[in-house]
């Protein structure tokens, strides 16, 4: 009887000791994170993950690893760990859901991010508002203005302080996206064919347009001079006309790309501003 009682006691004791050790080690991992010893914290947490039992402990480890990788801008890994947080802890779960969704948006996986936010249905009213706000940001990133309008209509009456400024910014971006000029590469090529550099000017790169025009004019003048003074068969004319023709063809080719490059640059700038504004309320609310 005594032996059985002792054995049970030993088993219970071992369990208690394990729990105490893992809580202590978790505190150690948080201490490492606070000191920004990220590689050491990752090592401790990954070791803990294999030793721990119970969803609550696993959630804490996954949440902390997600946060470390988020800080390191390793967003794919960050999302992988955030996604492992279960529903057992609603506080951790909500933060993990929002940051995982934002990570996907930042990685330009906007369709994934959208379906994540669509699936996630928080109970808290402020989180519901934050979810609609993030969905509105995603609609702008996807350039789905009709969807943005319907989400903005939901955001408008709430006037939550947390997102007030960013919602106003979203409306500004919406206006800018709507007014983005739709320029054609064909028109740019045609303009450059008439006047070298005019295509780049039309695309919005005025400095490049003027520079291209000046270079072309200088080479053109030298070619004309060589033709006038040395003749059609002279080495000078052949050299300058070859250079001028190469430059002229290159200018036409470049004009077609200039429209696309400029459009991508403008879109990239707007996207970065949207992502920045999507991030601010998350940081304010959760951290």
């Amino acid at each position, binding site marked *: 009887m005594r032996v059985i009682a002792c054995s049970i*006691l030993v088993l219970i*004791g071992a369990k208690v000791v394990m729990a105490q050790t893992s809580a*202590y080690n978790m505190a150690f991992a948080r201490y490492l994170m606070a000191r920004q010893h990220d590689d050491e914290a990752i090592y401790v947490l990954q070791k803990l993950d294999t030793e721990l039992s119970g969803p609550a402990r696993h959630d804490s480890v996954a949440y902390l690893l997600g946060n470390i990788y988020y800080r390191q801008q390793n967003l794919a890994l960050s999302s992988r760990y955030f996604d492992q947080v279960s529903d057992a802890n609603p506080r951790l779960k909500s933060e993990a859901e929002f940051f995982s969704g934002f990570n996907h948006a930042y990685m330009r996986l906007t369709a994934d991010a959208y379906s994540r936010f669509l699936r996630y249905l928080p109970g808290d009213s402020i989180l519901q508002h934050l979810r609609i706000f993030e969905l509105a940001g995603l609609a702008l990133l996807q350039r789905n203005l009709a969807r943005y309008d319907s989400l903005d209509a939901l955001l408008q009456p709430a006037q939550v302080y947390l997102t007030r400024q960013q919602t106003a910014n979203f409306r500004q971006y919406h206006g800018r996206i709507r007014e983005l000029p739709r320029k054609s590469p064909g028109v740019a090529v045609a303009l450059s064919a008439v006047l070298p550099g005019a295509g780049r000017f039309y695309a919005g790169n005025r400095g490049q347009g003027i520079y291209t025009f000046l270079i072309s004019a*200088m080479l053109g*003048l*030298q070619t004309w*001079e060589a033709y006038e*003074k040395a003749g059609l068969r002279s080495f000078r004319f052949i050299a*300058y006309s070859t250079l001028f023709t190469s430059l002229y063809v290159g200018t036409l080719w470049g004009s077609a790309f200039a429209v696309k490059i400029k459009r991508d640059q403008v879109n990239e700038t707007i996207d970065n501003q949207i992502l920045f504004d999507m991030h601010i309320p998350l940081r304010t609310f959760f951290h």
Partner: protein
Amino acid sequence: MIIRYFLICTFPFAPFFTRAQSLAAADSLFEEGRYLEARVAYEYLLFQRPGASDRVNLLLLKKAYCFKAEGLYNEAYETLQQADFFAGSDSLKQTLYYEVALAAYVSGQHDVALSRLQEMFYYFPDHNLPMAFLLEILCLNQLQRWDDAAKRYQQLQTRLHLAGDNPYKGRRIKPKNPDRAETWSYVLPGSGQVYAGYGARGVSSLLLQSACAAFATYSFHNGFYFSGAFTGVSLFYMFYNGGARYARSLTEKTNAKRLNALNEAVLKSAQELKK
């Protein structure tokens, strides 16, 4: 009685169950080359029971050795910066000073390294770390304090009875002036490169610019005004300015080479110090 005995034995020792919880275990991880694990183990000991300052200093020093072994000198420096340089035994303090100076030197903070060494020399004038003198000389070289470096080398040679040549004797130590090289190239194209020690590049620069000037002159003379201006003069102008800037960068390269050669010569004497 059994229960009480069991609880007394178990709870206070709960956090000490894993391997990384003793200094000897952490040291063995370091010996095995498992530096990340060793770092975690040292940090765990710091987290667990910091204790007296000399113990903290020892743990920080060991953690810095891990970073050093991984080639993370900046992290080693940051770790050692946390140490209390006024606590613990004299030998530990001297090692801390030397290691923090070395980590600062390798991570490019030569002035910080020198000031740490000077602190050490002030507090421990009779220290037994000849490598610290050598490190000081390297710092002085990097800071271009050649006279001080030569003087310190002389003192080191006398103090430790070092045989071999003095690397500061008969060597061109004074750096060439990049501003002067640039100015010379503006006055006579290519001369800045020659001053920097790159004769062939100086001659080719001179030839290239002469060819451009000749083309411009020839074109103007024969009535090709556009070609003379836009090709001859433009190219000459480009090579003229570019050549002067190139002379400056070549001078800086020469200075860096000379400094490396000097440091190499000083480090050669370290072999003797090690013996």
